[in-house]
């Protein structure tokens, strides 16, 4: 058994600390609940540091079930940083509503452990187990805090859809294993190339695995859970569900498609294309009719997933990685602002709840404006640059008509994003209220928001990192 403590330190540290926090939290009285929060934050910081320390190394460990390479380092670090921001944004929200803070943090930490395992998966088995460890805490989080019936419905839909996706994935994995006799991702291309003709059984296995991945991303036609979960759950939970798991899902997608079938893209390209086109169409057009801001952002997520899949279709995984990181950054800020705004008994649900935000809290309105423009792809934001990279990848792949299609869809998207801006700036507030943001949250949220523009103006560094991954 090849084992290296150094290579697996992020996972081992995260797992150990989560267990420590879990037990410690039981012995804390309510007055010291903040200790749980601080420890969770410290854990994430150290896990990120340990992950970055592995940048120059390439490990294949634990009998090939664990892989640590540059892709793993970048995605894991992003997950931990996103987790750190989420934990900061939601603390006051949870405390104000007397929601069980420790369960939220502990389940989120376990979910991030699952993401980390998924990102570092070296075999189909760890891919599956990582995905389960990622999803199980999410189901519990969505169902745990029941405010109204929509939360139960959302949890139920999420759970049933997730279980179905897991079943499909497992079926696909077993077909691939049955067809090749291999379970390790690095051994599969060899086994596939040995076959003289494309193996139908293998192809069917790939179809099912891609469906499973599509479910996790929420790509059309496997998107049904996204709008309901986004609308039905509390904002802090949507904040978590919408950001970090997408990064991990991208890790899974690129491990599976790039490592295994990089040599034979014709096996999966057509499914990816169908999902990309449908996601762009449905996500952007259905978003126009929404009045609930969380549901709107849910549909916009589906649209963004369409772009990520377009990048994958063009065979440009670096562009996909850039897009998913940009998406995570923007969504983090957008839902972060919604969480911060939901205070003193007010939940931000409808777009009209944002009316007159400009007069209530100027800086928050400016931040929301910046984030929305970035989501819409206004230059020179990160959202613009990410779309630009994907579209130019399509042109390079000689599918310019898809680039035009993507462009049209972005234009439609700009319309419903601008409606939110209009409500914020030109509508009169329905009630006067005072918004107070804790100092730390304000600073982090501001950095987060400004990053969506700074990284758009100077995208070179992040793009260079993404190019190093493949």
């Amino acid at each position: 058994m090849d084992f290296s403590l150094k290579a697996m330190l992020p996972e081992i540290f995260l797992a150990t600390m989560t267990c420590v926090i879990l037990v410690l939290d039981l012995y804390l009285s309510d007055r010291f609940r903040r200790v749980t929060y601080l420890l969770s934050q410290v854990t994430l910081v150290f896990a990120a540091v340990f992950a970055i320390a592995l940048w120059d190394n390439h490990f294949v460990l634990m009998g090939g079930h664990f892989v640590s390479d540059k892709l793993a380092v970048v995605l894991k670090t992003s997950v931990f940083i996103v987790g750190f921001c989420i934990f900061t944004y939601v603390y006051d929200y949870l405390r104000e509503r007397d929601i069980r803070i420790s369960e939220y943090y502990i389940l989120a930490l376990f979910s991030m452990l699952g993401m980390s395992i998924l990102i570092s998966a070296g075999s189909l088995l760890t891919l599956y187990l990582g995905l389960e460890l990622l999803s199980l805490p999410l189901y519990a989080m969505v169902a745990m805090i029941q405010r109204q019936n929509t939360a139960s419905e959302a949890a139920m839909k999420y759970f049933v859809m997730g279980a179905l996706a897991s079943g499909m994935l497992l079926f696909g994995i077993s077909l691939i294993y049955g067809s090749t006799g291999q379970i390790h991702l690095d051994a599969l291309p060899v086994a596939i190339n040995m076959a003289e003709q494309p193996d139908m059984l293998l192809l069917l296995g790939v179809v099912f695995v891609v469906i499973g991945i599509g479910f996790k991303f929420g790509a059309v036609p496997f998107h049904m859970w996204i709008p309901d979960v986004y609308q039905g759950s509390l904002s802090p939970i949507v904040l978590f569900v919408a950001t970090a798991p997408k990064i991990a899902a991208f890790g899974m997608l690129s491990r599976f498609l790039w490592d295994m079938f990089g040599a034979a893209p014709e096996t999966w390209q057509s499914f990816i294309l169908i999902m990309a086109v449908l996601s762009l169409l449905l996500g952007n057009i259905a978003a126009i009719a929404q009045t609930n801001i969380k549901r709107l952002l849910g549909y916009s997520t589906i649209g963004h997933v369409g772009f990520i899949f377009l990048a994958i279709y063009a065979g440009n995984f670096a562009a996909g990685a850039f897009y998913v990181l940009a998406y995570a950054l923007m969504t983090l800020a957008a839902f972060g602002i919604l969480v911060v705004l939901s205070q003193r008994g007010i939940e931000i649900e409808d777009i009209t709840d944002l009316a007159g935000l400009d007069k209530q809290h100027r800086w928050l309105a400016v931040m929301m404006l910046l984030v929305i423009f970035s989501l819409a792809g206004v230059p020179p934001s990160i959202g613009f640059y990410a779309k630009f990279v994907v579209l130019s990848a399509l042109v390079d792949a000689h599918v310019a008509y898809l680039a035009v299609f993507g462009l049209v869809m972005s234009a439609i998207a700009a319309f419903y994003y601008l409606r939110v801006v209009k409500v914020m700036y030109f509508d009169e507030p329905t009630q006067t209220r005072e918004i107070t943001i804790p100092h730390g949250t304000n600073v982090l949220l501001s950095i987060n928001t400004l990053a969506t523009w700074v990284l758009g103006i100077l995208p070179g560094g992040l793009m260079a990192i993404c190019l190093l991954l493949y």
Partner: protein
Amino acid sequence: MLENYLPIVVFIAVGMVIGVAPIVLGKLLGPNKPNTAKLSPYECGFEAFEDARAQFDVRFYLVAILFIIFDLEIAFLFPWAVVFQQLGWPAIFAMGVFLLLLTVGFIYEWKKGALEWE
């Protein structure tokens, strides 16, 4: 290897025959003259008040799911018990970590009071 299981198959077959035969025989041989009064549910001379199924407390569910988790843990212990002498310390260490994880879960359950009943 499979021939070792022949007695079990015979056992299952005999068990099925003994279970099914009386029902079938009863159906075939017994007189069967149903009427409305015979088929109506009877409860001390009244119409039935409610369904026979009563609602359970959610705590039964919690106990059942906790039971399943520890049941699965035992499923992992069987193969380990067979081979740990062969594999030596690494296997003992591995199972130690596994059991430690579940002990953490057990402490959590205990302290939360999920095992208490009234």
